[in-house]
C-alpha cells in the first residue's frame, strides 16, 4: 500500500506517493529525477549515494522512503547557490579530484558535511571523514587535497 510522504529537497517541497519498500535513493532518482546521487553498492558500503538528511551525511540507499517523511534533504544538485559552485565543488575541479566521477557526488556531499562541522579539518579528520566513501579509481590523494584546499578558504 502506497504511503504519502512530504520532504524538502534542495529547498523545494515535494509530496510523493511511494511503496514503503522504496528507499530515499529510489525516490530521489526515479520519482524526482535527481540522478546526481549515484547508486553504487546499494548496501551502505560505498557512499556513492551520500546525501544530507537534516544536515547529516547518510547513505540514501539505507533510508526507507517512509522514514524520510518530513526530512530536509540536500543532494549534489542543491549544493551550488546562485549559480556559484560550493567551495568543495570548485576545489575538486582545481585539484583534479575527479577521475571517472562515479564516487564524486557522494564524496562531495560527505566532504560538505565534514567542512560544515570542521571548517578547517586536519588531514586525519579528512581521511576519517571520508572513510565511508570508496573511490575505485583510488584517487584519494587528490580528494584529500581538495578537501584541505576547500577548508583553507575563508
Amino acid at each position: 500500500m502506497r504511503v504519502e510522504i512530504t520532504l524538502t529537497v534542495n529547498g523545494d517541497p515535494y509530496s510523493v506517493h511511494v511503496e514503503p519498500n522504496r528507499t530515499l535513493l529510489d525516490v530521489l532518482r526515479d520519482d524526482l529525477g535527481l540522478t546526481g546521487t549515484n547508486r553504487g553498492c546499494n548496501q551502505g558500503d560505498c557512499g556513492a549515494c551520500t546525501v544530507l538528511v537534516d544536515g547529516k551525511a547518510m547513505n540514501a540507499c539505507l533510508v526507507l522512503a517512509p522514514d524520510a517523511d518530513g526530512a530536509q534533504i540536500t543532494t549534489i544538485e542543491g549544493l551550488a547557490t546562485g549559480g556559484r559552485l560550493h567551495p568543495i565543488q570548485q576545489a575538486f575541479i582545481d585539484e583534479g579530484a575527479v577521475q571517472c566521477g562515479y564516487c564524486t557526488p557522494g564524496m562531495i556531499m560527505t566532504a560538505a558535511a565534514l567542512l560544515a562541522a570542521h571548517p578547517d579539518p586536519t588531514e586525519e579528520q579528512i581521511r576519517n571523514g571520508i572513510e565511508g566513501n570508496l573511490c575505485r579509481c583510488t584517487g584519494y590523494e587528490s580528494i584529500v587535497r581538495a578537501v584541505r584546499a576547500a577548508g583553507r578558504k575563508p
Partner: protein
Amino acid sequence: MRRRWERGKVFRSVLPHFEYVRPRSVKDAIRILARYRGEAALLAGGTDLVVRMKMDRAAPRAIVDIKRLAPLGGPVKPSGRSAIAIPPLTTLAEIASSALLKRRLPVLPATALLMASPQVRNRATVGGNLANAAPSADMAPPLMALGARVRIHTRGGVKTIPLEQFFTGPGETVLGVTGILGTITVPLLPRGARASYQAYTVREAMDLSIASAAVRVQKKAGKVVSACIVLGAVAPTPLRVPEAEEALTGTRGTAGDIDAAAEAASRASMPITDVRATEGYRRDIVRVVVRRALSEVLS
C-alpha cells in the same frame, strides 16, 4: 526482481514488499509485534535491517518504525549521581560526540568512532547494535565491562536486567519476538578504575572485528582489586571471561600479569572459522587485544 550477486548470494536491488507501521507508543509497538508473531521487524536506524533485507536474509511482513517513540529517545543524561542513561535510539554519532560520555566514560565514544562510517553512524543506533546481537557488535563488550543494565519492555511490563544476561545466541536476545530494548544505564567508573576497548579489524572502516576485548580494571594501593574482561566476536555472544579476571585480580598489573590474563582469555574464547579469520588466528588475536586493552588501563 533478483540478480545474482557475488558468491551465489542473492542481492535484491528492490526490497520485498512489507507493511510500514508507525506505532503510537511502546505498548502499541509490542501489540503489533505480537500480532505478527515473529514476522515483523523493528526499525530504528535500519542500517542492519535494510541491508539484511537486500541480502535476502530478512523478509518481514511488517516493519515497525520505533524511531519516533519518545520513551526510547532523548538525550544521553545523568541517571542519579553515579550512572549515565543512554536511550536506545541514541545514534552512534551521538554517542561519539556526547560531551557527558567523553568526560565520564570516554571508552564509549571511542568505541562508537571505531564503527562503520560517518554515514552509517549518523543513522545506526546503540539499541540496534545491541538488539541485533551480532557476536561482533562493538558496543556490547565495553557496555558489559562497565556493568551496564538494560530496560526491557515486554507484554508483561518493564524490567531491568544486567546487559550480561541480555544475549542468548547469535542474533538472539531475551527480547524474543515481542520485547523491546529500553534505556541502557551505565554506572560511572569508581575511583581508581579505567576502561578500554580494543578491536582488531583488517580495514579501519566498514569492517567487523576479527576479535575484540573490553576491560575495566580498578586499582587500589598499587594492586588490582577488581577486573572485568569481555571478549567480542569469539563466541556466540559477547563473552565475559572470569578466568582472565581472576588471573589479574590481586596482582600489581605488571607486563607478566597482563600476559597471564591475556593467555587465560585466549584459552576461554570459543571462536569459529569464517570468512574473516580462522579459529586459531582468532585465539591469537584475543591474546593481542586483551594485552593491548590491559596495557592501556594499567600503564
